[in-house]
Protein backbone atom coordinates (compact mmCIF):
# COMPACT_ATOMS: atom_id res chain seq x y z
CA UNK A 1 0.00 0.00 0.00
CA UNK A 2 2.91 2.33 0.83
CA UNK A 3 4.49 1.71 -2.56
CA UNK A 4 1.27 2.56 -4.33
CA UNK A 5 1.21 5.86 -2.44
CA UNK A 6 4.74 6.61 -3.66
CA UNK A 7 3.87 5.83 -7.26
CA UNK A 8 0.81 8.04 -6.96
CA UNK A 9 2.73 10.97 -5.54
CA UNK A 10 5.36 10.63 -8.28
CA UNK A 11 2.66 10.63 -10.94
CA UNK A 12 1.05 13.66 -9.34
CA UNK A 13 4.38 15.51 -9.13
CA UNK A 14 5.08 14.81 -12.79
CA UNK A 15 1.60 16.02 -13.69
CA UNK A 16 2.00 19.23 -11.69
CA UNK A 17 5.34 19.88 -13.40
CA UNK A 18 3.80 19.30 -16.83
CA UNK A 19 0.94 21.69 -16.16
CA UNK A 20 3.26 24.41 -14.85
CA UNK A 21 5.69 24.00 -17.75
CA UNK A 22 2.76 24.52 -20.15
CA UNK A 23 2.19 28.02 -18.73
CA UNK A 24 -1.11 26.98 -17.18
CA UNK A 25 -0.15 29.08 -14.16
CA UNK A 26 0.09 28.46 -10.44
CA UNK A 27 -3.52 29.17 -9.42
CA UNK A 28 -5.12 27.03 -12.12
CA UNK A 29 -2.59 24.23 -11.62
CA UNK A 30 -3.24 24.17 -7.87
CA UNK A 31 -6.97 24.11 -8.43
CA UNK A 32 -6.64 21.19 -10.86
CA UNK A 33 -4.25 19.28 -8.57
CA UNK A 34 -6.39 19.83 -5.45
CA UNK A 35 -9.49 18.68 -7.30
CA UNK A 36 -7.55 15.65 -8.47
CA UNK A 37 -6.21 14.71 -5.02
CA UNK A 38 -9.73 15.05 -3.71
CA UNK A 39 -11.07 12.61 -6.30
CA UNK A 40 -8.25 10.15 -5.59
CA UNK A 41 -8.95 10.27 -1.85
CA UNK A 42 -12.63 9.59 -2.42
CA UNK A 43 -11.71 6.80 -4.83
CA UNK A 44 -13.60 8.58 -7.60
CA UNK A 45 -10.60 7.90 -9.82
CA UNK A 46 -9.65 4.27 -9.73
CA UNK A 47 -5.95 4.57 -10.24
CA UNK A 48 -3.20 7.15 -10.62
CA UNK A 49 -2.58 6.04 -14.20
CA UNK A 50 -6.02 7.34 -15.18
CA UNK A 51 -5.06 10.74 -13.89
CA UNK A 52 -3.69 12.23 -17.11
CA UNK A 53 -6.71 11.25 -19.17
CA UNK A 54 -8.97 12.69 -16.50
CA UNK A 55 -7.17 16.04 -16.47
CA UNK A 56 -6.99 16.15 -20.26
CA UNK A 57 -10.75 15.83 -20.54
CA UNK A 58 -11.28 18.37 -17.76
CA UNK A 59 -9.12 20.86 -19.67
CA UNK A 60 -10.92 20.03 -22.88
CA UNK A 61 -14.29 20.80 -21.34
CA UNK A 62 -13.04 24.15 -20.00
CA UNK A 63 -11.84 25.02 -23.50
CA UNK A 64 -15.09 23.90 -25.14
CA UNK A 65 -16.54 27.28 -24.40
CA UNK A 66 -18.24 28.99 -27.35
CA UNK A 67 -18.40 27.45 -30.81
CA UNK A 68 -17.13 29.13 -33.93
CA UNK A 69 -19.66 29.77 -36.67
CA UNK A 70 -22.26 31.64 -34.69
CA UNK A 71 -21.23 35.20 -35.20
CA UNK A 72 -21.96 36.63 -38.58
CA UNK A 73 -25.08 35.17 -40.08
CA UNK A 74 -27.41 37.60 -38.34
CA UNK A 75 -26.57 41.00 -39.84
CA UNK A 76 -26.04 42.73 -43.20
CA UNK A 77 -22.56 42.75 -44.70
CA UNK A 78 -19.89 43.83 -44.25
CA UNK A 79 -18.94 41.57 -41.35
CA UNK A 80 -16.40 43.65 -39.46
CA UNK A 81 -13.54 42.13 -37.47
CA UNK A 82 -11.21 44.26 -35.36
CA UNK A 83 -7.86 42.75 -34.35
CA UNK A 84 -6.09 43.89 -31.18
CA UNK A 85 -3.22 42.91 -28.90
CA UNK A 86 0.19 43.83 -27.55
CA UNK A 87 3.26 44.38 -29.70
CA UNK A 88 4.65 41.68 -31.95
CA UNK A 89 2.14 38.91 -31.17
CA UNK A 90 1.09 38.35 -34.79
CA UNK A 91 -1.95 40.59 -35.41
CA UNK A 92 -1.07 41.68 -38.94
CA UNK A 93 -0.04 38.17 -40.01
CA UNK A 94 -3.21 36.68 -38.48
CA UNK A 95 -5.27 39.22 -40.44
CA UNK A 96 -3.59 38.07 -43.65
CA UNK A 97 -4.41 34.44 -42.77
CA UNK A 98 -8.04 35.31 -41.98
CA UNK A 99 -8.34 37.24 -45.24
CA UNK A 100 -6.99 34.25 -47.13
CA UNK A 101 -9.44 31.96 -45.31
CA UNK A 102 -12.41 34.15 -46.34
CA UNK A 103 -11.05 34.64 -49.88
CA UNK A 104 -10.96 30.84 -50.21
CA UNK A 105 -14.70 30.90 -49.45
CA UNK A 106 -15.18 33.35 -52.31
CA UNK A 107 -15.82 36.34 -50.05
CA UNK A 108 -14.71 39.89 -50.88
CA UNK A 109 -12.33 41.03 -48.18
CA UNK A 110 -11.19 44.58 -47.34
CA UNK A 111 -8.39 45.34 -44.89
CA UNK A 112 -7.97 48.56 -42.90
CA UNK A 113 -4.38 49.69 -42.26
CA UNK A 114 -5.16 50.88 -38.74
CA UNK A 115 -1.53 50.82 -37.56
CA UNK A 116 -0.52 54.32 -38.59
CA UNK A 117 2.34 54.49 -36.14
CA UNK A 118 4.92 51.71 -36.55
CA UNK A 119 7.57 51.88 -39.27
CA UNK A 120 6.62 49.75 -42.26
CA UNK A 121 3.23 48.73 -40.81
CA UNK A 122 1.10 50.04 -43.66
CA UNK A 123 3.44 48.55 -46.28
CA UNK A 124 3.38 45.21 -44.45
CA UNK A 125 -0.42 45.04 -44.67
CA UNK A 126 -0.39 46.25 -48.27
CA UNK A 127 2.06 43.50 -49.19
CA UNK A 128 -0.19 40.93 -47.56
CA UNK A 129 -3.24 42.44 -49.25
CA UNK A 130 -1.62 41.82 -52.65
CA UNK A 131 -0.75 38.24 -51.73
CA UNK A 132 -4.21 37.29 -50.50
CA UNK A 133 -6.12 39.47 -52.96
CA UNK A 134 -7.75 41.82 -50.49
CA UNK A 135 -8.12 45.56 -50.95
CA UNK A 136 -6.26 47.64 -48.35
CA UNK A 137 -7.77 50.94 -47.15
CA UNK A 138 -5.06 53.20 -45.80
CA UNK A 139 -4.06 56.79 -45.19
CA UNK A 140 -0.69 58.45 -44.69
CA UNK A 141 1.59 57.20 -41.93
CA UNK A 142 0.89 59.17 -38.77
CA UNK A 143 -2.78 59.78 -39.55
CA UNK A 144 -5.56 59.14 -37.01
CA UNK A 145 -6.37 55.41 -36.78
CA UNK A 146 -10.05 56.26 -36.19
CA UNK A 147 -10.11 58.18 -39.47
CA UNK A 148 -8.72 55.14 -41.29
CA UNK A 149 -11.31 52.92 -39.58
CA UNK A 150 -14.14 55.25 -40.55
CA UNK A 151 -12.95 55.37 -44.17
CA UNK A 152 -12.61 51.61 -44.29
CA UNK A 153 -16.12 50.97 -43.00
CA UNK A 154 -17.49 53.48 -45.51
CA UNK A 155 -15.57 51.87 -48.37
CA UNK A 156 -16.56 48.33 -47.33
CA UNK A 157 -20.24 49.33 -47.20
CA UNK A 158 -20.36 51.31 -50.42
CA UNK A 159 -18.40 48.73 -52.37
CA UNK A 160 -20.26 45.74 -50.94
CA UNK A 161 -17.37 43.93 -49.30
CA UNK A 162 -18.38 40.80 -47.40
CA UNK A 163 -15.68 41.15 -44.76
CA UNK A 164 -13.67 44.06 -43.36
CA UNK A 165 -10.74 43.30 -41.09
CA UNK A 166 -9.25 46.21 -39.14
CA UNK A 167 -5.57 46.05 -38.17
CA UNK A 168 -4.52 48.07 -35.13
CA UNK A 169 -1.11 49.03 -33.79
CA UNK A 170 0.44 46.87 -31.10
CA UNK A 171 0.08 48.47 -27.68
CA UNK A 172 0.70 47.45 -24.10
CA UNK A 173 -2.47 47.09 -22.02
CA UNK A 174 -0.75 49.34 -19.47
CA UNK A 175 -0.54 52.31 -21.84
CA UNK A 176 -3.56 54.41 -20.91
CA UNK A 177 -3.56 56.75 -23.92
CA UNK A 178 -3.17 53.91 -26.40
CA UNK A 179 -6.02 51.95 -24.79
CA UNK A 180 -8.16 55.10 -25.05
CA UNK A 181 -7.18 55.32 -28.73
CA UNK A 182 -8.38 51.75 -29.18
CA UNK A 183 -11.73 52.54 -27.53
CA UNK A 184 -12.11 55.46 -29.92
CA UNK A 185 -11.54 53.23 -32.98
CA UNK A 186 -14.15 50.85 -31.58
CA UNK A 187 -16.66 53.70 -31.09
CA UNK A 188 -16.05 55.20 -34.51
CA UNK A 189 -16.63 51.87 -36.24
CA UNK A 190 -19.90 51.50 -34.34
CA UNK A 191 -20.96 55.02 -35.32
CA UNK A 192 -20.53 54.23 -39.00
CA UNK A 193 -22.25 50.87 -38.67
CA UNK A 194 -24.34 50.14 -35.58
CA UNK A 195 -23.46 46.79 -34.08
CA UNK A 196 -19.96 46.84 -35.58
CA UNK A 197 -17.33 45.65 -35.06
CA UNK A 198 -19.08 42.28 -35.00
CA UNK A 199 -15.96 40.47 -33.85
CA UNK A 200 -13.01 41.69 -31.83
CA UNK A 201 -10.14 39.23 -31.87
CA UNK A 202 -7.49 39.49 -29.19
CA UNK A 203 -4.23 38.03 -30.47
CA UNK A 204 -2.10 36.27 -27.86
CA UNK A 205 1.36 34.81 -28.40
CA UNK A 206 1.67 31.19 -27.22
CA UNK A 207 5.16 31.92 -25.82
CA UNK A 208 3.72 34.49 -23.40
CA UNK A 209 3.55 33.64 -19.71
CA UNK A 210 1.13 34.86 -17.05
CA UNK A 211 1.12 38.41 -18.43
CA UNK A 212 -1.37 37.12 -21.02
CA UNK A 213 -4.01 37.05 -18.29
CA UNK A 214 -3.54 40.77 -17.62
CA UNK A 215 -3.59 41.44 -21.36
CA UNK A 216 -6.86 39.58 -21.81
CA UNK A 217 -8.43 41.28 -18.82
CA UNK A 218 -7.52 44.84 -19.77
CA UNK A 219 -8.21 44.53 -23.49
CA UNK A 220 -11.63 43.04 -22.67
CA UNK A 221 -12.35 45.94 -20.33
CA UNK A 222 -11.46 48.43 -23.06
CA UNK A 223 -13.28 46.86 -26.00
CA UNK A 224 -15.78 44.04 -26.40
CA UNK A 225 -13.33 41.22 -27.16
CA UNK A 226 -15.28 38.30 -28.63
CA UNK A 227 -12.52 35.77 -29.07
CA UNK A 228 -8.85 34.90 -28.98
CA UNK A 229 -6.37 33.98 -31.69
CA UNK A 230 -3.42 32.12 -30.19
CA UNK A 231 -0.34 32.39 -32.41
CA UNK A 232 3.07 30.72 -32.72
CA UNK A 233 1.91 27.29 -31.58
CA UNK A 234 4.36 25.86 -34.12
CA UNK A 235 7.10 26.60 -31.59
CA UNK A 236 7.71 24.65 -28.37
CA UNK A 237 5.45 26.74 -26.13
CA UNK A 238 2.19 25.05 -25.14
CA UNK A 239 0.02 28.14 -24.76
CA UNK A 240 -1.52 26.93 -21.50
CA UNK A 241 -2.29 30.54 -20.58
CA UNK A 242 -5.57 30.29 -22.50
CA UNK A 243 -7.02 27.84 -20.00
CA UNK A 244 -7.44 30.30 -17.15
CA UNK A 245 -8.42 33.04 -19.61
CA UNK A 246 -11.24 30.97 -21.11
CA UNK A 247 -12.32 29.78 -17.68
CA UNK A 248 -12.24 33.11 -15.85
CA UNK A 249 -13.09 35.60 -18.58
CA UNK A 250 -15.43 33.40 -20.62
CA UNK A 251 -13.56 34.26 -23.82
CA UNK A 252 -13.48 31.53 -26.46
CA UNK A 253 -10.34 30.69 -28.42
CA UNK A 254 -11.34 30.94 -32.08
CA UNK A 255 -8.13 30.33 -34.01
CA UNK A 256 -4.59 29.15 -33.63
CA UNK A 257 -1.59 30.29 -35.66
CA UNK A 258 0.85 27.56 -36.60
CA UNK A 259 3.30 29.36 -38.85
CA UNK A 260 4.17 32.45 -40.85
CA UNK A 261 2.44 31.67 -44.15
CA UNK A 262 -1.06 32.69 -45.16
CA UNK A 263 -2.32 29.11 -44.83
CA UNK A 264 -1.05 28.67 -41.28
CA UNK A 265 -4.33 29.29 -39.49
CA UNK A 266 -6.59 26.66 -37.94
CA UNK A 267 -9.92 26.76 -36.17
CA UNK A 268 -9.30 26.11 -32.50
CA UNK A 269 -9.96 22.50 -31.53
CA UNK A 270 -10.12 21.95 -27.74
CA UNK A 271 -9.48 18.22 -28.07
CA UNK A 272 -6.27 18.53 -30.10
CA UNK A 273 -5.07 21.37 -27.94
CA UNK A 274 -5.65 19.49 -24.68
CA UNK A 275 -3.99 16.37 -26.07
CA UNK A 276 -0.95 18.39 -27.22
CA UNK A 277 -0.40 19.61 -23.66
CA UNK A 278 0.44 16.06 -22.69
CA UNK A 279 2.87 15.32 -25.53
Amino acid at each position, binding site marked *: LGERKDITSEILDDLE*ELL*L*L*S*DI*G*VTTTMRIMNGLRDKLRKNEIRDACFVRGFIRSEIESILNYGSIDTLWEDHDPPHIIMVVG*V*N*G*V*GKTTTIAKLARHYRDQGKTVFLAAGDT*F*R*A*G*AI*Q*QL*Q*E*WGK*RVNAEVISQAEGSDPSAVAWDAVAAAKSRHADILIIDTA*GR*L*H*TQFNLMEELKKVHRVVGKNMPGAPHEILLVL*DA*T*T*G*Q*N*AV*AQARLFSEAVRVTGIALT*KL*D*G*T*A*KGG*IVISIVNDLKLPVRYIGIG*ERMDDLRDFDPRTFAAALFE
Partner: protein
Amino acid sequence: NLTDRLQSVFKTLRGHAKLTEGNIAEALREVRLALLEADVNFKVVKRFINQVQERAVGKEVFKSLTPGQQVIKIVHEELVDLLGREKAAMVRAPMPPTVVMLVGLQGSGKTTSCAKLAKTFKKEGRQPMLVAADIYRPAAIDQLKTLGTQIDVPVYAPGTDINPVEICESGLAAAKREGIDTVILDTAGRLHIDRALMDELRNIKSKTNPSEILLVADAMTGQDAVNIAQSFNNDLDISGVILTKLDGDARGGAALSIKSVTGKPIKLVGMGEKLDPLEVFHPDRMASRILG
Protein backbone atom coordinates in the same frame (compact mmCIF):
# COMPACT_ATOMS: atom_id res chain seq x y z
CA ASN B 1 2.47 40.44 -2.08
CA LEU B 2 5.39 38.25 -1.08
CA THR B 3 6.47 40.37 1.89
CA ASP B 4 3.00 40.14 3.46
CA ARG B 5 2.78 36.42 2.76
CA LEU B 6 6.16 35.82 4.43
CA GLN B 7 5.22 38.00 7.42
CA SER B 8 2.24 35.78 8.12
CA VAL B 9 4.33 32.60 7.62
CA PHE B 10 6.74 33.74 10.31
CA LYS B 11 4.37 35.36 12.76
CA THR B 12 5.37 32.97 15.55
CA LEU B 13 9.14 33.26 15.04
CA ARG B 14 10.94 35.97 17.01
CA GLY B 15 14.39 37.55 16.94
CA HIS B 16 17.41 35.54 18.24
CA ALA B 17 15.87 32.43 16.75
CA LYS B 18 17.69 30.61 13.99
CA LEU B 19 16.30 29.97 10.55
CA THR B 20 15.94 26.21 10.36
CA GLU B 21 14.92 23.88 7.59
CA GLY B 22 11.65 23.43 9.34
CA ASN B 23 10.66 27.02 9.87
CA ILE B 24 11.71 28.22 6.42
CA ALA B 25 10.06 25.38 4.50
CA GLU B 26 6.77 27.26 4.47
CA ALA B 27 8.50 30.49 3.51
CA LEU B 28 10.33 28.82 0.65
CA ARG B 29 7.03 27.44 -0.59
CA GLU B 30 5.73 31.02 -0.80
CA VAL B 31 8.88 32.16 -2.61
CA ARG B 32 8.51 29.27 -5.04
CA LEU B 33 4.93 30.28 -5.82
CA ALA B 34 5.95 33.91 -6.32
CA LEU B 35 8.70 32.93 -8.77
CA LEU B 36 6.39 30.61 -10.74
CA GLU B 37 3.77 33.36 -10.93
CA ALA B 38 6.53 35.59 -12.28
CA ASP B 39 7.15 33.09 -15.12
CA VAL B 40 10.50 31.81 -13.86
CA ASN B 41 10.97 28.35 -15.34
CA PHE B 42 9.88 25.44 -13.13
CA LYS B 43 13.30 23.73 -13.09
CA VAL B 44 15.14 27.02 -12.58
CA VAL B 45 12.90 27.71 -9.58
CA LYS B 46 13.72 24.29 -8.10
CA ARG B 47 17.47 24.90 -8.34
CA PHE B 48 17.10 28.44 -7.03
CA ILE B 49 15.05 27.41 -3.98
CA ASN B 50 17.65 24.78 -3.08
CA GLN B 51 20.39 27.41 -3.31
CA VAL B 52 18.42 29.78 -1.09
CA GLN B 53 17.74 27.04 1.43
CA GLU B 54 21.47 26.25 1.69
CA ARG B 55 22.21 29.90 2.31
CA ALA B 56 19.37 30.48 4.73
CA VAL B 57 19.51 27.48 7.04
CA GLY B 58 21.47 28.18 10.18
CA LYS B 59 21.35 31.93 9.76
CA GLU B 60 20.50 33.86 12.83
CA VAL B 61 17.48 36.09 12.63
CA PHE B 62 18.77 39.67 12.87
CA LYS B 63 17.22 41.89 15.51
CA SER B 64 16.59 44.64 13.00
CA LEU B 65 14.67 42.42 10.59
CA THR B 66 11.66 40.17 10.89
CA PRO B 67 12.28 36.55 9.82
CA GLY B 68 10.19 37.21 6.72
CA GLN B 69 12.33 40.20 5.82
CA GLN B 70 15.43 38.10 6.47
CA VAL B 71 14.32 35.46 4.02
CA ILE B 72 13.41 38.08 1.42
CA LYS B 73 16.81 39.68 1.86
CA ILE B 74 18.54 36.35 1.22
CA VAL B 75 16.26 35.58 -1.73
CA HIS B 76 16.80 39.04 -3.19
CA GLU B 77 20.59 38.82 -2.86
CA GLU B 78 20.62 35.36 -4.36
CA LEU B 79 18.49 36.59 -7.27
CA VAL B 80 20.75 39.56 -7.94
CA ASP B 81 23.81 37.27 -7.86
CA LEU B 82 22.17 34.97 -10.37
CA LEU B 83 21.01 37.77 -12.65
CA GLY B 84 24.56 39.02 -12.89
CA ARG B 85 26.06 41.67 -10.65
CA GLU B 86 28.87 42.67 -13.01
CA LYS B 87 27.90 45.24 -15.60
CA ALA B 88 28.50 43.65 -19.00
CA ALA B 89 29.75 46.16 -21.54
CA MET B 90 29.31 45.92 -25.30
CA VAL B 91 32.32 44.30 -26.97
CA ARG B 92 34.19 46.04 -29.78
CA ALA B 93 36.31 44.35 -32.41
CA PRO B 94 40.11 44.86 -32.24
CA MET B 95 39.93 46.14 -35.85
CA PRO B 96 36.84 47.99 -37.14
CA PRO B 97 34.19 47.38 -38.19
CA THR B 98 32.62 45.76 -35.13
CA VAL B 99 29.78 43.43 -36.12
CA VAL B 100 26.75 43.21 -33.82
CA MET B 101 24.18 40.52 -34.71
CA LEU B 102 20.66 40.47 -33.28
CA VAL B 103 18.77 37.16 -33.24
CA GLY B 104 15.62 35.77 -31.69
CA LEU B 105 12.07 34.56 -32.04
CA GLN B 106 9.45 36.21 -34.21
CA GLY B 107 8.17 39.54 -32.94
CA SER B 108 10.60 39.83 -29.99
CA GLY B 109 11.75 43.33 -30.96
CA LYS B 110 14.94 42.78 -32.99
CA THR B 111 14.38 45.35 -35.74
CA THR B 112 13.36 48.04 -33.26
CA SER B 113 16.34 47.20 -31.02
CA CYS B 114 18.74 47.36 -34.00
CA ALA B 115 17.58 50.90 -34.63
CA LYS B 116 17.87 51.84 -30.96
CA LEU B 117 21.44 50.51 -30.92
CA ALA B 118 22.34 52.36 -34.10
CA LYS B 119 20.99 55.60 -32.68
CA THR B 120 23.00 55.17 -29.47
CA PHE B 121 26.21 54.32 -31.33
CA LYS B 122 25.76 57.40 -33.49
CA LYS B 123 25.34 59.61 -30.42
CA GLU B 124 28.56 58.09 -29.04
CA GLY B 125 30.37 59.32 -32.14
CA ARG B 126 30.49 55.95 -33.89
CA GLN B 127 29.62 55.41 -37.58
CA PRO B 128 26.99 52.66 -37.58
CA MET B 129 25.29 50.93 -40.49
CA LEU B 130 22.20 48.74 -40.40
CA VAL B 131 21.99 45.57 -42.53
CA ALA B 132 18.57 44.37 -43.65
CA ALA B 133 19.01 40.60 -43.54
CA ASP B 134 15.32 39.71 -43.14
CA ILE B 135 14.16 38.78 -46.63
CA TYR B 136 11.12 36.83 -45.47
CA ARG B 137 8.77 39.07 -43.51
CA PRO B 138 6.66 41.32 -45.78
CA ALA B 139 8.01 44.89 -45.73
CA ALA B 140 10.73 44.03 -43.16
CA ILE B 141 13.22 45.91 -45.32
CA ASP B 142 10.85 48.90 -45.55
CA GLN B 143 10.60 48.86 -41.77
CA LEU B 144 14.37 49.01 -41.30
CA LYS B 145 14.84 51.61 -44.05
CA THR B 146 12.19 53.84 -42.47
CA LEU B 147 13.90 53.56 -39.08
CA GLY B 148 17.29 54.24 -40.68
CA THR B 149 15.93 57.44 -42.21
CA GLN B 150 14.44 58.51 -38.87
CA ILE B 151 17.84 58.27 -37.15
CA ASP B 152 19.95 59.21 -40.16
CA VAL B 153 21.86 55.92 -40.27
CA PRO B 154 22.61 54.17 -43.58
CA VAL B 155 20.80 50.91 -44.27
CA TYR B 156 22.40 48.24 -46.45
CA ALA B 157 19.46 46.57 -48.19
CA PRO B 158 20.16 44.77 -51.47
CA GLY B 159 16.63 43.34 -51.42
CA THR B 160 14.79 40.04 -51.01
CA ASP B 161 16.36 38.22 -53.96
CA ILE B 162 19.72 37.80 -52.24
CA ASN B 163 20.15 35.26 -49.46
CA PRO B 164 20.71 36.60 -45.92
CA VAL B 165 24.22 35.13 -45.55
CA GLU B 166 25.35 36.91 -48.69
CA ILE B 167 23.62 40.12 -47.59
CA CYS B 168 25.54 40.12 -44.31
CA GLU B 169 28.85 39.26 -45.97
CA SER B 170 28.57 41.93 -48.63
CA GLY B 171 27.21 44.39 -46.08
CA LEU B 172 30.37 43.90 -44.05
CA ALA B 173 32.52 44.38 -47.16
CA ALA B 174 30.66 47.57 -48.03
CA ALA B 175 31.12 48.83 -44.46
CA LYS B 176 34.88 48.33 -44.67
CA ARG B 177 35.00 50.32 -47.91
CA GLU B 178 32.97 53.20 -46.51
CA GLY B 179 34.60 53.81 -43.15
CA ILE B 180 31.71 52.37 -41.17
CA ASP B 181 32.94 51.24 -37.76
CA THR B 182 29.88 49.32 -36.50
CA VAL B 183 27.69 46.97 -38.53
CA ILE B 184 24.35 45.95 -37.02
CA LEU B 185 22.77 42.84 -38.55
CA ASP B 186 18.97 42.67 -38.33
CA THR B 187 18.07 39.01 -38.87
CA ALA B 188 14.62 37.52 -39.46
CA GLY B 189 12.67 36.13 -36.53
CA ARG B 190 12.77 32.35 -36.42
CA LEU B 191 11.93 29.34 -34.27
CA HIS B 192 14.84 27.79 -32.34
CA ILE B 193 13.62 24.42 -33.66
CA ASP B 194 13.86 25.43 -37.32
CA ARG B 195 17.06 23.64 -38.27
CA ALA B 196 17.49 25.34 -41.66
CA LEU B 197 17.01 28.85 -40.28
CA MET B 198 19.26 28.20 -37.28
CA ASP B 199 21.93 27.00 -39.73
CA GLU B 200 21.45 30.24 -41.64
CA LEU B 201 22.41 32.12 -38.47
CA ARG B 202 25.45 29.90 -37.97
CA ASN B 203 26.53 30.69 -41.51
CA ILE B 204 26.08 34.41 -40.98
CA LYS B 205 28.18 34.09 -37.83
CA SER B 206 30.99 32.24 -39.55
CA LYS B 207 31.07 34.70 -42.45
CA THR B 208 30.95 37.92 -40.41
CA ASN B 209 32.60 36.99 -37.13
CA PRO B 210 30.42 39.18 -34.86
CA SER B 211 31.83 40.63 -31.65
CA GLU B 212 28.32 40.49 -30.23
CA ILE B 213 25.57 37.99 -30.89
CA LEU B 214 22.63 39.26 -28.87
CA LEU B 215 19.53 37.18 -28.22
CA VAL B 216 16.55 39.52 -28.26
CA ALA B 217 13.92 38.12 -25.89
CA ASP B 218 10.48 39.38 -24.91
CA ALA B 219 10.17 40.09 -21.17
CA MET B 220 6.72 38.49 -21.12
CA THR B 221 8.00 35.09 -22.30
CA GLY B 222 6.84 32.22 -20.12
CA GLN B 223 8.22 28.76 -19.36
CA ASP B 224 9.47 28.35 -22.93
CA ALA B 225 12.23 30.91 -22.30
CA VAL B 226 14.66 28.16 -21.29
CA ASN B 227 14.12 26.18 -24.49
CA ILE B 228 14.57 29.24 -26.66
CA ALA B 229 17.66 30.51 -24.84
CA GLN B 230 19.29 27.12 -24.62
CA SER B 231 18.87 26.44 -28.34
CA PHE B 232 20.12 29.82 -29.49
CA ASN B 233 23.06 29.59 -27.13
CA ASN B 234 23.97 26.02 -28.16
CA ASP B 235 23.83 26.96 -31.83
CA LEU B 236 25.50 30.35 -31.70
CA ASP B 237 27.29 30.81 -28.36
CA ILE B 238 25.51 34.13 -27.85
CA SER B 239 27.42 36.95 -26.14
CA GLY B 240 24.44 38.44 -24.35
CA VAL B 241 20.74 39.16 -24.18
CA ILE B 242 18.51 42.14 -24.86
CA LEU B 243 15.28 41.91 -22.89
CA THR B 244 12.49 43.91 -24.58
CA LYS B 245 9.08 45.35 -23.65
CA LEU B 246 10.09 45.87 -20.05
CA ASP B 247 7.89 48.98 -20.09
CA GLY B 248 4.93 46.61 -19.65
CA ASP B 249 3.88 44.95 -16.40
CA ALA B 250 5.24 41.48 -17.06
CA ARG B 251 7.16 40.32 -13.95
CA GLY B 252 9.96 39.20 -16.25
CA GLY B 253 10.92 35.85 -14.72
CA ALA B 254 12.20 34.95 -18.18
CA ALA B 255 15.27 37.03 -17.33
CA LEU B 256 16.22 34.60 -14.56
CA SER B 257 15.42 31.56 -16.70
CA ILE B 258 17.55 32.80 -19.58
CA LYS B 259 20.51 33.84 -17.44
CA SER B 260 20.33 30.64 -15.46
CA VAL B 261 20.44 28.25 -18.43
CA THR B 262 22.90 30.16 -20.63
CA GLY B 263 25.13 31.91 -18.12
CA LYS B 264 25.23 34.80 -20.60
CA PRO B 265 24.68 38.38 -19.39
CA ILE B 266 21.58 40.43 -19.95
CA LYS B 267 23.25 43.50 -21.39
CA LEU B 268 20.41 45.84 -22.32
CA VAL B 269 16.67 46.27 -21.91
CA GLY B 270 14.04 47.76 -24.20
CA MET B 271 11.72 50.20 -22.48
CA GLY B 272 9.43 51.38 -25.24
CA GLU B 273 8.41 51.45 -28.86
CA LYS B 274 10.04 54.77 -29.66
CA LEU B 275 13.72 54.88 -30.51
CA ASP B 276 14.88 55.97 -27.06
CA PRO B 277 18.07 54.17 -26.11
CA LEU B 278 18.12 50.64 -24.82
CA GLU B 279 18.75 50.92 -21.11
CA VAL B 280 21.42 49.26 -19.05
CA PHE B 281 20.21 46.12 -17.23
CA HIS B 282 19.81 46.60 -13.46
CA PRO B 283 19.84 43.21 -11.72
CA ASP B 284 18.61 44.63 -8.39
CA ARG B 285 15.59 46.29 -10.01
CA MET B 286 14.89 43.13 -11.98
CA ALA B 287 15.07 41.04 -8.80
CA SER B 288 12.51 43.24 -7.04
CA ARG B 289 10.28 43.17 -10.10
CA ILE B 290 10.39 39.38 -10.34
CA LEU B 291 9.60 38.97 -6.64
CA GLY B 292 6.62 41.28 -7.07
